[in-house]
Each structure stands twice: as C-alpha cells, then as structure tokens.
C-alpha cells in the first residue's frame, strides 16, 4: 500500500468520522439527560436537507449570491430545523411521556420522509436526478485552513486538508466534555440523566433540562447532517438514505465512547477507517484471507470488511461490560420517562 493510499484512506476516514462525531456529541447530550433519542438519523437528515434546500433556493433566486450570506443562512436553517425536531421529541417524551424508543424510531422515519420529500422536489426543480448541486455554498464549508493547508508533509496532508467544520467538531467534543465534567450546569444535567427524582428533589427543573438537552443535542446532530451534505457528498443530494446508516453508527459511537465526547475524537475516526477499509485494504491481504476462509470470490471479502465498524462496536461493548466500572455505564435512568407523582 503506497503512502498516497494511506493518506487518502485517513482523509476519507476523517471526513466520515466528522459526520458521526457531530451525531455522537449531540446524542451524548441527549442521553446524559436520560433521553435515548433514537431519532438521530432522522434529525441528521432534517438538518441536512434544510441546509441543502436553503443553499439551493438562495443560489438560484439571488442574482449575485454572497458565499458568506449563503453559509450563514444554511447554518441557521439547519439549526432551526433540527431544533424543531428536538423540540418535537422533547414534547412527546417529556411532556406527553410517550415511550422514548417508539418516539425516536418514529422521528427517524419522519426525518427520512421529510428529507426524501424535499430532496425529490428539489431534484425536480433542478431538472432531474443527480443534477442538484450547491457547490457554490459547499465550497465555503470546505474552505481549507489558511496558513496550515499544504504544509507539514504527510502529516499535514492528513490533518490539515479538511474544511473548517472538521476542526469545529473536535473543539465541540472537548468543549462538551469540559461542560459535562467541570461546570455546575453539566453536573445538574448528569444528575437529571442518572436520577431525575433526585435532581427534582434537589431543586433542578428536570423538564427544562430535558427540553434543552433534546433541542441542543438535536442541533448538533443536525450540523452533522449539514456536514454530510456540504462536505461528505460535496453539495449534492440523492434520495438513498445513506445518511441514515451514518446516523445509526453515531448512536453506536455513543456507546463505544462510554458516553464521553472526548473519546469520540478518536473513536469516530477509527469507525471511519473501518468503514472505508473495504476500499483500501490491499488485494494481497484480501486474497490471502479469502483463501483461508475458502471463499470462491475475493470480492466477498469486501462485504466482510464492511462489517468492521459493527464488529468493533460489539468487541468494545464486551470489553467495557466486563470491566463493570460504574462510570462507564449508561446514565441510570436512560430511556425512562419521569413522573413526579408516580407511586
């Protein structure tokens, strides 16, 4: 395997990892408040399509579009749309006390529906499948870092060849980790997720914390969707729900990181390496393994490689659960609605 191959594998892994890192950070905030939001894939799709639609409409309806304005409008559209999705989730699970799993799964279906509906219509507007492109706006999101891009040899080409949102995700991961560990609000948030009755008795407004966690968490997930549209698929759209698969991996990543956004900074990239392994693993190794496994066709190996992120998750879950360290477990009240007057 040549150096350039390794570089492009790593670069692809980082791009992939960034999508699920946003999803993972957002979902971690949700789960730390005790809400198992399985609507992440849906929220990411809503966030993604909102940015796409915004960019498409702005680019096509304004005679002299300004890239900065377009970028900011896209971000706002994504944040607002995903915040609404988060608020819907919170309204159903916190206020109406609907089962969290059902609500989350339904939100995923809703998000897929919304994204494909608007995606399909935008395609018609632009003139057919595969013709949609908002490269003008996407270029803003993919803008490389000044001063650093193109320097520091191999290391630089892996680390400094990305758009600014890749670095924002890293900052966010460490920032949220600091928020959870070191701030009073973070402590209160964790208290809500561990034991809402205790938090309530301590004078914490459980409903407000849960709502804000769902909304802010969803906004971060939505930004993951935006990054997917603008960077990962370079400002295009296809009604194929690939983004949904990434959303589920983001949920798996939350468990993989033991609910620590800090761990997502490397975990997400590891998932990325595993995900793209089927393209980059040298054919020699594949041939060797295929022989050992008595496979008739070497290409079968590729399908096995695609299982890697899931296998890694299973292995990590086994290792973590063997250790039985209380701090590595899910928040104690995860998945349960809170009724104060329950007997």
């Amino acid at each position, binding site marked *: 395997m040549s150096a350039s191959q390794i570089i492009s594998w790593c670069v692809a892994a980082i791009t992939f990892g960034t999508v699920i890192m946003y999803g993972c950070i957002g979902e971690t905030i949700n789960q730390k408040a005790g809400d198992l939001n399985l609507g992440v894939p849906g929220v990411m799709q809503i966030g993604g399509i909102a940015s796409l639609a915004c960019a498409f409409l702005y680019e096509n309806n304004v005679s002299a579009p300004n890239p900065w304005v377009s970028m900011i409008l896209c971000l706002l559209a994504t944040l607002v749309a995903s915040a609404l999705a988060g608020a819907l989730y919170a309204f159903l699970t916190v206020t109406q006390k609907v089962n969290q799993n059902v609500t989350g799964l339904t939100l995923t279906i809703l998000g897929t529906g919304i994204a494909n509906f608007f995606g399909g219509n935008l395609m018609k507007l632009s003139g057919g499948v595969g013709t949609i492109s908002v490269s003008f706006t996407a270029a803003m999101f993919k803008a490389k870092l000044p001063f650093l891009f193109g320097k520091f040899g191999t290391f630089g080409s892996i680390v400094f060849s990305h758009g600014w949102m890749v670095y924002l995700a890293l900052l966010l991961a460490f920032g949220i980790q600091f928020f959870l560990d070191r701030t009073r609000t973070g402590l209160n948030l964790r208290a809500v997720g561990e034991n809402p*009755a205790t938090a309530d008795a301590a004078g914490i407004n459980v409903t407000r914390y849960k709502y804000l966690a769902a909304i802010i968490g969803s906004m971060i997930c939505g930004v993951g969707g935006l990054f997917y549209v603008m960077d990962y698929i370079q400002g295009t759209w296809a009604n194929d729900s690939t983004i949904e698969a990434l959303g589920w991996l983001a949920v798996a990543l939350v468990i993989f990181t033991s609910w620590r956004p800090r761990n997502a900074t490397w975990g997400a990239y590891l998932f990325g390496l595993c995900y793209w392994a089927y393209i980059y693993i040298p054919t020699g190794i594949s041939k060797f393994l295929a022989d050992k496994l008595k496979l008739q066709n070497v290409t079968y190996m590729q399908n096995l490689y695609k299982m890697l992120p899931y296998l890694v998750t299973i292995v990590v879950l086994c290792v973590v659960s063997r250790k039985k360290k209380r701090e590595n477990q899910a928040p*104690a009240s995860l998945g349960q609605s809170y009724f104060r007057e329950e007997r």
Partner: protein
Amino acid sequence: MKQIAVSMRGISKRFGKKVLANNKVDLDIYEGEILSLLGENGSGKTTLMNMLAGVYYPDEGQIFIKNTEVSITSPKDAYDLGIGMIHQHFKLIDVFTALENILIGLPSDEREKTCREEVEEICNKYGFELDLDKKIYDMSVSEKETLEIVKTLYRGADILILDEPTAVLTPQEIRKLFTILRNMKEDGKSIVIITHKLNEVMEISDRISVLRKGENVGTVLKSETNEQQLTEMMVGEKITLDIARDFVEDKAKRLEVKHLRVKNADDKMVVDDISFDLYSGEILGIAGISGSGQKELLEAIMGLQKCEEGSSVIYNSTAHGVHELVGLSTKEIIAHGLHLAFVPEDRLGMGLVGNMGMTDNVMLKRYRKGSGPFLHRKQPEATAQKIKDELEVLTPDLEYPVRKLSGGNVQKILVGREINNKPTVLMTAYAVRGLDINTSYAIYNLLNEQKKKGVAVIYVGEDLDVLLALCDRIMVLCSGKLNGILDGRSASKEEVGYLMTHLKQEEE
C-alpha cells in the same frame, strides 16, 4: 410554650379515583421537638410528608409555616421554606461523590470550596462522620443516610422529615443516629420521623401522631402513652403483640449444608464456605446486613445459583430419601418431587407473575405435569380458592392480576402456594418486608404452624426484634461468611448486631 413551626389543616390527597391516601388530616409540628408519625403501611404517612416536601400537591387543605399560609409546589419551594425530607429510598446519585451530590441544584455562584468548608462545619457541629470525596456506590447505607441528613442541613432546613430512617440500620448505627437527632433537636430544629417501629418511637420522640387509613386518629405525648395503646391506635383494635414460639420435639436433620460457596457475576465470593444443618420443627433465622449473602445462599440451595466446587447440600426427608442438591437445577428439584419451598424477597419478580391471576400463579409450578397440550385449570382453581379462603386473601376474583393487590395479599398468595405443596423445607426471604402489623402476624402464625407440622423453616429477616422472638436458632451472616449461630431464646439484640457488623477473625 414552644412555637409551632408547621401546621397542616384539612389536608386531603387522592391517587386516581379509588385511593384516598389522606383524608382531612390536621397536624402540628413544633420547633425543637421530635415528632413521630406512626402508622401501618398504606396509612398515608409518607404521602402526607411528601406534600410538605413538595413531591405531591394536596387536593384540599392548607399548610402554614410559622403562621403564614404557603403553597409548596416543588421540592425547591420546600427547601426555600426550610423543609427537607430524607426519603426512604435515598435520593442520591450513585456515580457522584458525596460533595457532588450536595452541589447539584445549587445556584452556580455557590463555590465548591466554600461548600466543602461549610459542610465540614456542619459535620463537626452535630457529630457526623462523612468522607466528601467518596462515591455513593462505595458507601454503606448508614453513610448514605448521614449524607442525606448533612445535605438537607446544608440547604438550611429547620424542619427535617425522615422516612423510615432506621429500616436498614444496625442497632449500633441507630443509636448513633438518635444521638445526632437529639443534638439537632437541642439546636431548635423540628424533626419528624415516619416509622412503624414502636420501640424506637418510645425511645426517641417527644410527641406521637398516629395515622390510620389516611386519617389522623390522634396525637399523644410520649410520656403519657405506651406501646399497647399506640398499637391499638394504629390498627384500630386490640391485638396481642407476642409471637408464639413452641418447642417441637423429635427433630430430624433435613438439610446438611457443607462448605457452600457461591461467586457472583463479578467473580466475588458472596457465599463463602458456609456450613450448617437445618432440622425439622425449627425456625432458623438468618440475620445480616442486606447483601451479606442471604439471597445467594437461599438461591444456591434452590438450584438458582451455580455453586463452586466442594459445595454440598444434602437433602434428607423421610418421604423422599437422601439427595445431593448441588448440581440439580430448580426444574430437576421440582421434577424429583423434592419438597423445597421458596418465598423469595422479590415477590412480584421471582415469586409471582404480576399480570396473572391467582389460578395461573398457582399453576406455575405444576403445569408441566398435565397430559396433552391443554392446561387443566380445575384443580389449580380449587387450590387458589382454598388459599384465598384459608389465608383471607382480599381479591375481587381468582383471575384478578395479583400485581394490583396490596403487598400483604401478594405475600399471602405466594406463601399459600408454597405451603400448599406440603414442603419439607420452607425458605423465606424478608417475608414481612413492607407488610402491616396484622399481615405480618398472620405470616408469623403461618410459619409457626408449618414448624409444628415438622417443616424445617428458614426465615431471613431484617427486624432483629422479630428474629429474636420467632426463631429457634439465629444464624448471622457477615460479608458472605457465617459469623456465628446463636440460640434464639437466649441471644440479645446487641450480640446479633455485633456479629452482623464485626467479622470474627479467622483462627490462626
């Protein structure tokens, strides 16, 4: 004359349409006193106090704090008024440290360092011992209780409500707690203790209010009452408080437990080399702090836990001969016709299926015996009816989901089913936990009857007074080890309490 700190007037609270938890209750709490709130389970003590602590909101009635009418809509309101409640199930977060548990919910300008200093000051003032950096999951029950009290005091509570504070403490820990409560009383705090243990009421309180079926049936001064009068107020009729204990002759060895060892999922030895014999016609009490291996010991005998090599449990009955139980599964034990009966601690989890009625629950242990693919319900139905009549189970009908019955009725069904099989060995874990006085005595009587019939009974209990009154022998467990077997007729509470907490040193 002492000042009134709180007065509650005409408080009513309903849950759903049927349950009237409190009915027009009046209650006064004075400054600098310890008031006991006495009543059976379900008499509405906790509900009443929860309304003071902001957990529930009263449907009717008024609450006055220092003669001003207030509306307490949340626990935060209660804190702001100086009311703090220590719930029976501690409101602590396991993965947090003691200090973090105190810090949650406080305004963010409250500095961690000043908080630590102030907490330490409180500890010194009243004599608490507390490690502020210890995680809750590493704490004993009594440490958690201490933390709860300190937390409440730190938040400036003048009125402290403690819900069943002594339920899981050893006699030594209770004495320590009472000393602290007296210190706080001297300091002018009002303390309310919710309890149903009469001896503690007589020891600690100044006044006693008794609740029955959600109503306040009277308030008396400690100096002017006695246990008998309080019991009558609680249950509304005269009952005898003595537990019978007959001596049965002709004892035969029924179980011979040798070197029994069980590891839990974390590979920790939870039953560590326990050997004892169990005889017919006796009640063997098992005492110990909860989690000392009681559950695992019974489950190991019952075939529900995997035993380590070298363990042996010999079952010996006149009717069925001699069997080695280690290695047999529960299913095999039942199939061999060995008459082991087990009343587990978790009644609706391990004992009965909550959503099924009495008949189906009776069938659980025998449905395999039927011929053909269909169930035969005639006989179990008759058995269920018999249990219902003999043990006076209150249920609308035999098919009514047992989950919806009160704890006492659930326990009667479970015990009824187990003794219906004419057991040779009857094992019960916390058989009266959460039951009111009348039902508890009904259960004691049932166990005594079985003993007289020659059944070998194991009674795992937590109330030492009951253990000492009911059991012929008391086996004390301490962190999974057998720490002594005492004679039930001569042992003292202090002796048992000491053995529960102090593991004997191994002989060199």
